[in-house]
């Protein structure tokens, strides 16, 4: 659970439909931040935003995971996880449904 050295076992996720391999245990926020610019969502005025606080406070990393809005920094990548970076693109619409 905590050993950093053994050969990393990876899992496959998709980000906006594009497959990615990441080490098991990686948070969705870390997976997003790995590929610059690492956009998680689009702000109400159209700016690209990426994880800011890393600890579940700022909600900048909210993404759609398996159809539900979740915080990327508090979600661990598991095999087959489908992530979409289209959450909250209109004022007041924190949680668009698929």
């Amino acid at each position, binding site marked *: 659970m905590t050993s*950093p050295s053994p050969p990393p076992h990876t899992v496959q996720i998709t980000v906006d439909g594009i497959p990615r391999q990441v080490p*098991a245990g990686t948070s969705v926020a870390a997976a997003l931040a790995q590929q*610059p610019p690492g956009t998680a969502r689009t702000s109400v005025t159209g700016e690209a935003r990426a994880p800011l606080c890393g600890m579940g406070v700022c909600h900048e990393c909210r993404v759609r995971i398996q159809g539900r*809005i979740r915080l990327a920094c508090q979600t661990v990548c598991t095999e087959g996880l489908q992530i979409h970076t289209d959450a909250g693109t209109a004022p007041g619409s*924190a949680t668009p449904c698929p």
Partner: protein
Amino acid sequence: MPMTPTAPPSAAHEHCDLLIIGAGPAGMAAALAAAPSGASITVVDDNPQPGGQIWRGGPQVALPALAQQHRSALAQHTNIRVLTGTRVVGLGATHPTDKAPALLLEDADRGWTQHSHRTVLCTGARELLLPFPGWTLPGVTGAGALQALIKAGLDVRGQRIAMAGTGPLLLAAAATAIQAGATVVRIAEQASWASLAGFAAQLPRWPAKALQALALLNPHLRASTHVLEAQGTVQVQSVRLRRGMQGEETIACDRLACGFGLVPNTQLGQLLGCALGGPLSNGQGLAVDAQMRTSVPGVYAAGECTGFGGSERALVQGAMAGHAAAGQVQQARALRPQLARWDGFAQALQASFVLNGAINTLARPDTLVCRCEDVPYADLAPRQGWIDAKLHTRCGMGACQGRICGAATQQLFGWTPAAPRHLLAPARIGTLAACAPTPSTPEAPTG
């Protein structure tokens, strides 16, 4: 304290004797201190694993022995239930028969009302993130955030990282980044060398802390230096810094990590009616007495939500709160000398990293202050206070519920954010269905 059976996990209403919010050092210590009483204990944390920020696990983490000991001890107690990935989203309805207050909880799959007569708040602290031009660019994070992302698997090998802000967390985050293979190109500390030297001179009173500080020293540390601007088009590419009174430097970087100190997480405490005034948090933390009791009967608080003193202080406070909540007042009292020792460290910290007034003037008129509702500085400057700003600009009304911009406007304008109201965080409609109204025929506790 009576044993109450725990409801099956599918029930919309559950009971425990002691509810602990937060599984960082304070919450873990509280649970372990209370466990021998036999009470049924539920510990809730919104992160995927226990440990809080300082003992955050992840694919690139070798946890310190003390953290591992606490985690395995928690797992060994059959009367402690640790619920990770679980968030407090608001208040639940008081139980109609035994009058137990309740919180509304939500995890990835379900929402439910958790009843408990006693609650220990170990909600920790967040970073103070202040607006400056370019701070919304991808690649700009909090300092603790960068540390958290690296622990959670972000590979920073070969990346150039600049850090700016204040306090020991900058050095700790830089050390994490270097260990993970990054090049830390600058650590801009806004405090002066005189302040840093004054702090360092006191460290021998806490030898373990002095050793930590030595290990964190970095040749790229500059005092009296603060961020002016993050530059880049689609992501941060460089940072412009002010050095002393006149000098400026621009440094190319792949990431910029900023932290201007800590803010106690008091939202839940305030929602429950707990008074603020923790002395080691500029009065912003939850106020507690010598038994870690808040102003609300049955509600205790421990750790960084009461003031800032690091994990050692949080562990002592947590244990005191756990003992007190389990009715073991003597055991709580016995820890007071230890607490006094770490309160001293907290006082030294607070005195040494006071924010320089220039930090309040970094935002330009078009710099966004509220990142949820994209409200620029120019729209906020004429407002009279927090409520006025909310009503006219939607500042603080987005998904984070003012956790970032509320603390920022408190620092910039001296506004006091209003006490939060139910709900504390965005919640699913199915979760709200689990909280209200109170069932007219209460579920009998099942087991």
